[in-house]
């Protein structure tokens, strides 16, 4: 299941959905808004998406993750719009029979989401300025 949402992510619901009699391990990843980065204070983040493509990419990533690891459940929710400090911008929950698969799948999912899903984060800083974050400049660029 993948979802883009403008509301706070309901983490307890996701965990309940992923915890099933046939699973033995659940791994949850939450990406949260950090207040200080390199000494500058962030007030909030705002996420923008190319929603149609982001949903398509997330569905493809769920399929690919399930192809790579035997998952009982795989849930990805990304928040859009303004996200206050310490709230989750992304939640990934995977449940598996064996724990190693859950850690590997969760880490691969968040790494790949950060590279290949068209979502952008703008920082609102305490000095009133805003800034687009570009953590991963693309190497294999179009010339």
């Amino acid at each position, binding site marked *: 299941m993948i979802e883009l949402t403008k509301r706070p992510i309901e983490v307890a619901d996701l965990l309940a959905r992923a915890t099933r009699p046939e699973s033995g391990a659940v791994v949850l990843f939450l*990406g949260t808004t950090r207040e200080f980065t390199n000494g500058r204070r962030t007030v909030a983040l705002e996420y923008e998406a190319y929603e149609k493509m982001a949903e398509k990419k997330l569905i493809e990533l769920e399929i690919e993750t399930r192809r790579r690891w035997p998952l009982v459940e795989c849930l990805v929710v990304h928040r859009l719009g303004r996200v206050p400090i310490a709230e989750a911008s*992304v939640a990934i929950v995977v449940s598996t029979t064996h724990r190693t698969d859950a850690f590997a799948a969760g880490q691969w999912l968040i790494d790949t989401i*950060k590279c290949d899903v068209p979502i952008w984060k703008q920082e609102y800083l305490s000095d009133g300025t805003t800034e*687009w974050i570009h953590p*991963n400049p693309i190497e294999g660029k179009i010339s």
Partner: protein
Amino acid sequence: MKICVKLFAVARELAGDSEIIVEVHDHATIAELQRAVVAACPRMDRIMPHSRWSLDADFVTSDVYVHETSELALIPPVSGG
């Protein structure tokens, strides 16, 4: 033919709009579309080395042909998660 390009994040801010319409010849590639976008909005030149293109919501390389019916978007470096 006229091609409408969707713009997001820093690209949208540089262009001052969430899309830009440019004129390209009938058998234009993504590379030619990109040159047309930069010609129409020179300020966008600086983000091109780090940006990708999508056609109908899939990433495409610069040699792919565009069509009037294609949904095209310029994808600046993503920062979700």
